[in-house]
């Protein structure tokens, strides 16, 4: 009982939390983050150019029948063509205006080609000289990447599947065919 009385007799003053060290830490953290912040995220579009290889030459006696997909880009149009390397060649060509709707149409055409032939992952792109880099990037986006919600069937050859690919690709290998000696 005595103890209880003693405790209640202690006056508890107003307790104030010293927030100054907390503000110091916050200020330093904000300064560091503001200096190291990257407000523009930079990405890359991967392309290749044709090159001479010292690999074993193809067997001309038994040529492999492969589907070749090409995209010709000009100021006005995008032409998507596909043909087989061995007869029956069965060449198909479709032309789309080079505007937002046309690029979307060309993308759908490429998606249908890729859906029908899941093992083909290479496209050769030809571009006219007066196409700007901005226009080129728009077309490359449509060629290289799948839009959200789009999927591809798995390739017949399972070894062709790339593990760990972060972004679903339509045609991951784009060869700039115009760049030739």
């Amino acid at each position, binding site marked *: 009982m005595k103890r209880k009385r003693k405790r209640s007799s202690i006056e508890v003053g107003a307790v104030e939390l010293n927030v100054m060290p907390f503000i110091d830490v916050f200020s330093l953290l904000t300064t560091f983050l503001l200096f*190291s912040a990257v407000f523009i995220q930079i990405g890359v579009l991967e392309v290749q150019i044709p090159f001479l290889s010292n690999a074993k030459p193809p067997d001309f006696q038994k040529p492999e029948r492969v589907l070749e997909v090409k995209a010709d880009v000009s100021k006005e149009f995008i032409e998507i063509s596909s043909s087989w390397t061995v007869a029956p060649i069965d060449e198909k060509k479709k032309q789309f205006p080079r505007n937002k709707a046309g690029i979307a149409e060309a993308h759908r055409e490429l998606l249908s080609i890729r859906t029908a032939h899941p093992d083909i992952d290479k496209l050769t792109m030809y571009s006219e000289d007066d196409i700007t880099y901005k226009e080129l990037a728009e077309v490359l986006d449509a060629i290289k990447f799948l839009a959200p919600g789009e999927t591809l069937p798995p390739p017949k050859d399972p070894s062709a599947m790339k593990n760990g690919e972060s972004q679903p690709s339509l045609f991951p290998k784009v060869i700039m065919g115009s760049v030739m000696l």
Partner: protein
Amino acid sequence: MASVSSESGETLSLNIMPMLDVFSILILFLLMSFSTDPVSHDITAGLELPESISIRSLDENPLITITKKDIRVGDLIVTGLENGDVIESNRTQGAIAPLFKELEKLAEANRVRKDLPVDLEGPQKDALTVEMDQSLSFKLLKRVMLTAQQAEFVAFKLMVNKANDG
């Protein structure tokens, strides 16, 4: 709450809670946008990159910068540009002579690196990163690629701005 006593003995108190709130939100935003990309790069002044839905990040490949005024390898200006094309004295068979010299040096360094154990996670050794203004033509990019091809570089990573909605 921080407090200060005035001359008249009156205690003035400053409410720092709203400031803490602002700080907390700012830190949260900055932490959310903190880049985890392995390589950070400051875009060259006066150069505008096109937007792309690509989410692939930069890696440490040699950089070719094509501005409206010049072409650079790293920080070194190799040739000037005139009307969106390489000045005539620096053109040879569609390629760019001074650029070829610089890329040859890089290719030589790559040949030495190729003798070292293969680093699977490392950047592609025969690839170049190209930073180019979005208004420049493919004709110029083609010249650069053709020059690179002669110096045995066949893969390119074209730098773009990641679109926000991508």
